[in-house]
């Protein structure tokens, strides 16, 4: 297994770049970051829709969240793969499909995290803002959201780790990320599938273990004393 | 019946019980009181080994609690009533009472049920036998907890601040049960702040402070003529 690593580490790291698109581990992390950055504003909008008193915002937001939570991600990706070109009018690469799908998918999950962060704040915060004469939107923007978003940073970082794992589905639509790179190596070597995929697993394991460590550090730094007891 | 011989206990560096030597006789009703942090709860919890001791011996009914073969067997002969009741929420009141006798093979299910119902009647909770603990008030739960502890026919009953978690209007219903137990000759050790109970029912009062039993006296003598300064301060603080 060590030989496989030393022979192919470049492919696993950056895919076929510079003789092809950026792939491998770099692409995996890059996909995750971009998708989550796009998912973030989406998540906020959906969260606000979910807590809205206006039916016109509540029902679409709720529908989106429930549909996304009820569908397997792979099916969702296929939908985006089919729909996006129709929407844009042009054919769309696997990478763009992946980013769009992940952004929407993660947006729905982030929405629930942000929503529970908002609902965990004492009602007095909104009441204080309104009694100062701030509009509902203003209070949301200046008082509620900053606190809710700060409080849910650990949860959102955990979602980042989930997103990194979800990028592996790019393999199915030929996106050049880490799993795809490993599959390419397997196709070249053909006689050592266990070693190749074990190496792949260990790579994700190491990456996510490090990321989990970072999340724990952030939690410690934030002094999160929020004890959530099991319901 | 219960004997403390040179008992000391530490929590890490902190000395919780300091060389305690004392006796409780059969049929005696003992009240242990003192300021918070005095070690009174710790003391009572060492009797059935809920808390371990590092030095000394505790002898219950002739058996060294820390050297006995089966602590479970030992505990089934000692009844313990907790400040927080600790009833099992996933069982009905009657099931709470029946579980231990049946599981420990002391009684058949039928006998356990009869015995349980009799105990519930005795504490005034017969009509709530099939109800779940969370549907009861604090005072009702504590009475059930006392009945549960009695189900195994213990020789000693230990009470760890049984009324401290109750709203004032429910304290009396629990004290009444405890009084009737005392009148029947049960050996009882009660950690409590209820001084009227001590006055009416107790045979002896132990006043504890900083891990030691500072004063031992019959209640009348303790309340009217406390000997030590710390006891005097404690009693005067209580009155205000």
């Amino acid at each position: 297994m060590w030989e496989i690593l030393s022979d192919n580490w470049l492919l696993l790291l950056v895919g076929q770049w510079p003789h092809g698109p950026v792939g491998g581990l770099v692409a995996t992390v890059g996909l995750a970051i971009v998708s989550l950055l796009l998912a973030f504003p989406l998540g906020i909008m959906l969260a606000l829709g979910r807590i809205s008193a206006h039916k016109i915002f509540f029902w679409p937001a709720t529908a989106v969240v429930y549909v996304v939570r009820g569908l397997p991600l792979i099916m969702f990706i296929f939908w985006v793969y089919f729909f996006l070109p129709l929407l844009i009018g042009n054919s769309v690469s696997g990478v763009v499909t992946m980013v769009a799908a992940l952004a929407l998918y993660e947006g729905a999950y982030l929405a629930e995290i942000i929503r529970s962060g908002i609902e965990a704040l004492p009602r007095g915060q909104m009441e204080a803002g309104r009694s100062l004469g701030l509009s509902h939107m203003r209070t949301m923007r200046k008082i509620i959201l900053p606190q809710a978003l700060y409080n849910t940073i650990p949860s959102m970082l955990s979602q980042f780790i989930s997103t990194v794992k979800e990028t592996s589905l790019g393999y199915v639509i030929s996106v050049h990320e880490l799993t795809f790179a490993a599959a390419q190596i397997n196709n070249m070597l053909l006689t050592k599938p266990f070693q190749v995929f074990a190496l792949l697993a260990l790579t994700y394991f190491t990456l996510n273990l490090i990321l989990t460590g970072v999340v724990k550090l952030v939690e410690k730094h934030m002094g999160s004393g929020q004890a959530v007891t099991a319901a | 019946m219960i004997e403390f011989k040179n008992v000391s206990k530490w929590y890490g560096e902190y000395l919780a019980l300091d060389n305690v030597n004392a006796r409780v006789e059969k049929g005696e009703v003992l009240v242990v009181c003192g300021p918070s942090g005095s070690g009174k709860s710790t003391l009572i919890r060492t009797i059935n080994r809920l808390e371990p001791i590092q030095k000394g011996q505790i002898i219950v009914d002739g058996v060294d609690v820390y050297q006995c073969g089966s602590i479970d067997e030992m505990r089934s002969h000692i009844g313990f009533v907790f400040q927080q009741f600790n009833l099992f929420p996933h069982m009905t009141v009657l099931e709470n009472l029946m579980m231990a006798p049946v599981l420990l093979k002391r009684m058949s299910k039928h006998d356990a049920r009869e015995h349980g119902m009799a105990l519930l009647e005795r504490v005034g909770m017969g009509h709530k036998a099939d109800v779940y603990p969370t549907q009861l008030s604090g005072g009702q739960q504590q009475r059930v907890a006392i009945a549960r502890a009695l189900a195994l026919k213990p020789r000693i009953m230990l009470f760890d601040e049984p009324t401290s978690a109750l709203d004032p209007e429910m304290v009396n219903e629990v004290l009444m049960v405890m009084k009737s137990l005392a009148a029947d000759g049960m050996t009882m050790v009660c950690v409590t702040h209820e001084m009227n109970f001590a006055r009416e029912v107790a045979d002896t009062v132990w006043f504890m402070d900083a891990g030691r039993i500072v004063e031992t006296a019959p209640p009348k003598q303790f309340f009217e003529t406390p000997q030590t300064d710390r006891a005097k301060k404690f009693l005067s603080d209580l009155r205000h």
Partner: protein
Amino acid sequence: MKYTFDFGALLGQGYPALIWGGLMTTLEMTLFAWLLAFVLGSVLAVLRMLNIRALNYVIAVYVAFHRNVPMLVHILLWYFGVGAIMPLFIEDVVNQIGGEFVYSTIAIGLVTAAYVSEDLRSAIRSIPRGQMEASRSLGLSYLQSMRKVILPQAFKISIPPLTNQTLLLFKNTSLAMAIGLIELTGAGREIESATFKTFEIYTVVTVLYLAISLLLMFVGAYLSKRVAYVTKTR
């Protein structure tokens, strides 16, 4: 948008049978993987309560490995990796049932077991110490206390997270299509490439997934309500 909707095209050529077969495969996978996950997860959770250092370490590594590596990679590892190094007599048995089915079910079951054990563990830890103390004070042994007092309460508390895990497990079965198993998503793709009626077939598959997901969510909520009791005393 040039697209003519034609759901009727899905009715021909044995396509309904294909969808039905895919659905059944999905449900079978869900069932077997769930059994594996639940049994193994419970065993791991209870083993951790024994507080044996070495054992805890091994279980912690198991949980970390299965949680940090993507589900798809686990499936690939089992199907391509383990499948290749299996002794022949096991391989024969596996191939009779279908290698894709067996290995993906095992992979999904093992990963979910890791999450189940963590959920059960935190449920057990959330039960107040007084419950164990009360039970031990009555003279029950540690094991008896676990069996009669702690675990029953822990299972009730863990119904919501376990419902969530079941839902995730159900959705994860779709990943098996990556190794060629014709479960529901795989069947959908087959029909898509045969008929080009992408929207129609995707809609059917989506409706099926959503229906079952919602059903699972409702069952979970119902179970949770039925066994619920307020644990805080008044």
